[in-house]
């Protein structure tokens, strides 16, 4: 990405200019969060399931090498070809090489956040390969030339009017039409033609099973299966943390995944791939791209447990009010903010600060990642390594001086209250970010401490 990237706070400011729109975005995601709550409460064993999932993933992190080797061996025995990519560039070259080898220049793709992370579509397009995203939400953002704003709900930032206009332009739907049923039908027809004519299909991987060499892909639309079962060549791309030890563990993860993501008890399709169908080629690309570095960071390695349900985004007060694009990373929200600094500290230094540290993300995480703790710890790392902007550093230093000296603190509190009353314009101005989108409360006449000192005698 050569475009200049706006920092999260600046991008959020743009996002927040349209208040009714932000409120709508906020409420829409909160509704999804509520569906998750309702669904999880149907299971008395919910907390134990989370504990089990987290424990299995912990085992995975401590046995990753053995599990990957076992997976590779079984997959090969099943007739699947296994490739390893140390970084995004290698991953993209492997996919391009496979397509070239088969003289294929058009491919369908179902959802894969990994390929977003690797910026694969851009790379393939530059090399003369047309990639069609087939998940409806992903197709919508692809036609708009923008990345998904949410890992599960890629077009959650758009209103149906935006999509109606987009489809009118690209798919020839009636001008002004906004009925979701009608628009979805148009996309179904448009994409069916792609499924029927493309010889290569790329999918992501939700879970890869070390014991069997098989992998599971979950969708609601059926697009991964439509693509894979019609294509001559199926390429499945996975970050290496997708591995789980045994097939029976899928019971734990499939029970948690959809309930956490959308509140459904399971996605419509949970497709278990193991061997290619007759005459078909199946490839798996196992990708590192910084994951092995993250594995070595004691405080942050738990982020590799993530199963990409998106629950932390739906619940996050900052995500809901700033939108996925403000995070300028393939994975947005709280989990994205602890994954991104590992990939590039300089570029993503703003993200761990895009949080109130309220801890709601950690509370809903199905694999119990200590997300808000990691956000806090990243702040320390980033400050120590000099990635925090000067303005923030000066502010924090001033704050620590004041807070470390009780008498100075008392004096400055009194001064602040007096100034706010006598000269409100001194604080209520464009230089003070606390006044953006909010009003300050009336300053109290005295501090609690003054009140206490005065009343203690009574």
């Amino acid at each position, binding site marked *: 990405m050569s475009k200049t990237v706006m920092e999260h706070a600046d991008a959020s400011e743009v996002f927040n200019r349209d208040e009714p729109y932000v409120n709508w975005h906020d409420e*829409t995601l909160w509704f999804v969060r509520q569906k998750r709550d309702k669904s999880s409460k149907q299971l008395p*064993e919910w907390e134990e399931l989370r*504990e089990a999932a987290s424990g299995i993933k912990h*085992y995975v*992190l*401590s046995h*990753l090498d053995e599990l990957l*080797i076992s997976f590779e061996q079984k997959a090969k025995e*099943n007739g699947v070809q296994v490739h*390893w990519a*140390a970084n995004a560039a290698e991953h993209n070259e492997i996919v391009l090489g496979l397509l070239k080898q088969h003289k294929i220049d058009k491919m369908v793709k179902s959802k894969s956040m990994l390929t977003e992370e690797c910026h694969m579509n851009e790379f393939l397009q530059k090399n003369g390969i047309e990639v069609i995203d*087939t998940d*409806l*939400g992903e197709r919508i953002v692809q036609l708009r030339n923008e990345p998904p704003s949410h890992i599960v*709900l890629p*077009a*959650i930032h*758009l*209103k*149906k009017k935006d*999509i109606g206009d987009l489809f009118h332009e690209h798919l020839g739907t009636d001008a002004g039409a906004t009925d*979701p*049923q009608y628009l*979805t*039908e148009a996309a179904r027809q448009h994409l*069916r033609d792609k*499924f*029927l004519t493309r010889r290569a299909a790329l999918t992501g991987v939700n879970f890869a099973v070390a014991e069997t060499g*098989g992998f599971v892909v979950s969708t*609601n*639309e*059926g*697009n991964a*299966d*439509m693509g894979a*079962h*019609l294509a001559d060549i199926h390429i499945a791309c996975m970050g*290496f943390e997708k591995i789980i030890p045994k*097939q*029976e563990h*899928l*019971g*734990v993860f499939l*029970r948690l995944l959809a309930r956490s993501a959308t509140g459904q*008890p*399971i996605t*419509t*399709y*949970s*497709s*278990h791939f*193991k*061997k290619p*169908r007759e005459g078909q080629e199946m490839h798996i690309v*196992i990708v*590192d791209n910084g994951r*092995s*570095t993250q*594995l*070595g960071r004691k405080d942050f390695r738990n982020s590799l447990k993530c199963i990409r349900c998106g629950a932390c985004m739906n619940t996050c007060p900052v995500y809901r009010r700033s939108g996925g694009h403000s995070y300028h990373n393939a994975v947005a929200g709280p989990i994205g903010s602890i994954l991104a600094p590992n990939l590039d500290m300089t570029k993503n230094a703003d993200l761990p600060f895009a949080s109130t540290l309220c801890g709601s993300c950690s509370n809903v995480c199905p694999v119990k990642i200590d997300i808000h703790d990691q956000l806090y710890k990243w702040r320390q790392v980033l400050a120590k390594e000099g990635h925090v902007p000067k303005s923030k550093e000066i502010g924090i230093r001033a704050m620590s001086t004041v807070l470390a000296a009780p008498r100075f603190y008392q004096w400055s509190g009194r001064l602040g209250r007096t100034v706010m009353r006598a000269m409100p314009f001194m604080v209520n101005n464009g230089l003070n970010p606390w006044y953006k989108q909010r009003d300050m409360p009336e300053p109290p006449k005295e501090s609690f401490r003054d009140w206490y000192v005065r009343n203690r005698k009574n």
Partner: protein
Amino acid sequence: MSSRDRILGQIRQNKPEEVALPPVTTFASHFENTEDKFREMLSLIYTEVIVVKNAEELALKAEELYKGVVNRATTIPALSAWADFSLNVSDPHELETVEIAIVQAEFGVAENGAVWISDQYLPHRVLPFITQNLAFVIPRNALVNNMHEAYVRLQDTLGWGCFIAGPSKTADIEQSLVIGAHGARSMVIFLLEGE
């Protein structure tokens, strides 16, 4: 050094201290009635469940439900007279025009309404996705309570298999649920009484 060895080497160097698998990773679900739960979950995902006593009744029901529909395909011998579309094609793309497929499947899961289908039951993997409408036939007694039981039951997955819960759907446009995204637009499940 190959990327494979580099990745594995770095993992070995950076992985945390060994921990054991958690002792408990399966849980029991206690439903008053497994079949009622299965029906309840399927009604929430727009799927009708019909109990049929035998193959004759299945054929009658199929006739009644899909009256006037052309391009009917099935994997069930007892319905061969009902079907007018042969699945005996070499290229799965030829299934593009199938309107309704009635397919034998293995078992259902009460907690989420999913049905397990696999290579064992299908001449073409794409059939349950490419058909406009889909119906599964499973033995009435082939229902398990939850996903843990499901994995005990299926043991191995052969070449390919899938849990399918209801018709294809999407909510990608303003969170409005639309049935019939890429796969089947409707789903019916026949529970066949024991023979």
